[in-house]
């Protein structure tokens, strides 16, 4: 029988994960705001911003795991959706600067004045309103993914070929956004943000709120992914991953399923990017770099593909390592270490951290459950106690 959506979505590990995310999302901002600086319980603002970045990455990793881990679509261009969401938020933040810019133009952002724009390009209209920007954060990556996916999946582009064209997609966007006349600030991108919804984006309170919101978004994204992968649609996705043409012969329109999950995933990546930008204070074309997308795939591989929790964990663990190593004397070697990590994980932990843990834990748990059931049965007198030989 099919259990209710809540019971199937929230198994034990999912509940534990959500409790941890909620605890971090509540306790970290509280400790930052309530305890004075210097107190042992005070989390400094820079750390909160750093963790906030990790949380956004975790959401991006989750979106990649949804398509890669469950549907076998290896997107090496998911950073593009993340960056587009980030740009949509960045445009809102730019419009909030108003006349406080260096050039004091009430409408045009500084870079436009500098580049002799006479008026606001049409695609900047509406971004002074938060609701519109928030909508675009989801709509723009979603539309791009839908168009891209519609063409690719209908033509049955799969495997490495799909991965390569996703790389090409993010690279094309990188080049476009680098151009000054594209209207998004060229290689400097968008920065010098002042306010978000009337609050100073640099203030501790706004940062704490952004951090809490990122955790909320991660929790919601996780719930959506769980609801999808535990539904019958999730079983169809796995079927497509494991035997695509077999799934077709059962009457499933494979391209529709891929399109659905790819678009959903891009929307999630967009939200992650939108929460990331106000916390790091800048968005520039570098976010479209193909390497970023590949790095995000490594997080998922390290944490455990097809586990959701593993993807989030992998994003946090790898990025924490990156922070530690790139700020020390080992900084020049970080990319080598990342490459080595990927090779080692592929060779030694092909299921990632969570996958390996599950493989070790589940037989043990089954044995324990069986033992419990057996002893219960014995107490009930259902089975005879085993005799020692």
């Amino acid at each position, binding site marked *: *029988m*099919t259990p209710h959506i809540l019971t199937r979505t929230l198994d034990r590990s999912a509940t534990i994960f959500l409790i941890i995310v909620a605890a971090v999302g509540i306790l970290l901002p509280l400790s930052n705001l309530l305890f004075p600086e210097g107190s042992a319980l005070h989390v400094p603002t820079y750390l909160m911003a750093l963790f906030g970045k990790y949380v956004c990455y975790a959401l991006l990793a989750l979106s990649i795991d949804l398509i890669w881990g469950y549907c076998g679509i290896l997107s090496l261009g998911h950073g593009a959706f993340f960056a587009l969401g980030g740009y949509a938020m960045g445009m809102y933040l730019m419009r909030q600067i108003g006349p406080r810019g260096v050039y004091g133009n009430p409408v045009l952002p500084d870079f436009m004045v500098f580049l002799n724009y006479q008026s606001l390009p049409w695609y900047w209209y509406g971004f002074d309103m938060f609701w519109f920007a928030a909508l675009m954060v989801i709509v723009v990556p979603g539309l791009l993914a839908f168009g891209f996916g519609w063409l690719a999946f209908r033509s049955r582009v799969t495997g490495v070929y799909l991965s390569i064209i996703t790389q090409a997609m993010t690279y094309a966007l990188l080049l476009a956004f680098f151009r000054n006349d594209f209207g998004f600030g060229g290689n400097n991108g968008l920065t010098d943000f002042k306010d978000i919804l009337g609050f100073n984006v640099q203030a501790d309170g706004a940062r704490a709120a952004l951090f809490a919101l990122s955790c909320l978004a991660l929790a919601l994204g996780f719930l959506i992914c769980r609801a*999808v992968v535990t*539904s*019958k*649609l999730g*079983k*169809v996705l*796995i*079927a497509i991953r*494991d*035997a695509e*043409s*077999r*799934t*077709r*012969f*059962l*009457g*499933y*329109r*494979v391209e*529709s*399923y891929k399109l*659905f999950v790819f678009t959903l995933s891009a929307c999630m990546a967009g939200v992650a990017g939108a929460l990331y930008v106000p916390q790091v204070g800048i968005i520039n074309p570098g976010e479209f770099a193909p390497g970023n997308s590949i790095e995000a795939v490594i997080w998922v591989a390290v944490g455990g593909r097809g586990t959701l929790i593993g993807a989030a964990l992998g994003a946090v663990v790898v990025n924490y390592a990156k922070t530690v190593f790139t700020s020390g004397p080992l900084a020049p070697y970080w990319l080598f270490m990342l490459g080595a990590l990927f090779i080692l994980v592929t060779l030694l932990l092909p299921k990632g951290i969570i996958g390996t843990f599950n493989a070790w834990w589940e037989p043990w748990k089954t044995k324990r459950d069986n033992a419990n059931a057996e002893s219960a049965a014995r107490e009930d007198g259902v089975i005879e106690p085993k005799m020692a030989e």
Partner: protein
Amino acid sequence: MSMLETRSTPSMLYLDGVHVSFDGFHAINNLSLTLATGEMRAIIGPNGAGKTTMMDIITGKTKPDQGEVLFDGSVDLTKLDETQIAELGIGRKFQKPTVFESQTIEDNLLLALNVDHRVRGTLFWRQSKAEAATIERVLETIRLTDARDRLAGSLSHGQKQWLEIGMLLAQDPKLLLVDEPVAGMTDVETHQTAELLKEINRDHKTVVVVEHDMTFVRELGVKVTCLHEGTVLAEGTIDQVSANDRVVEVYLGR
């Protein structure tokens, strides 16, 4: 030039003058075959005779260069893709058993069920009593009730064959294409499979069985078509076909 108006035949499956070539190799050569509704047909033939290619054509995996392929009287299968053909009610069991290995046996059957296959339908799907009953019935038929929660990948070769037949049953198609159902099975299992297919056929389903195993074909006791180099070499009872000089010639070598 082929006639443009839609043809209509009283048969369940109608192939006429079908040609397929891959890079100059004529896999199917002027193949014509007719199956009446409710008929079971065994297809035999040496390797490379075009048996699997014929199934690929019927299920939309391969498009014929020439010829007519009609289903259920008038549906032109050459214009449809795999999904549309499956939705019409043509189910297929592959030569190499293809089940969803990382999912449980019950989920394999669940995926095969003949219900709404669209995205929204599956996202908000809840199992009905009738569907649960179908799965129960199929599990019993293929004798995997006790193994329902096991991963399909952990099954033996013969069990996988049965699971795939079970998936066909859950799919509830009008026409079943069964490619080498007893490969790798023991004699007992082969016998049981023949019984199972006969039972399926008794439920008024049209069945095409491709098989090498002559004991099995004999046990089915149905009309046999022998293919060779993409065309029909002989047709008739198993005794007639195996007595045919040309059949003996292609099977035993020239």
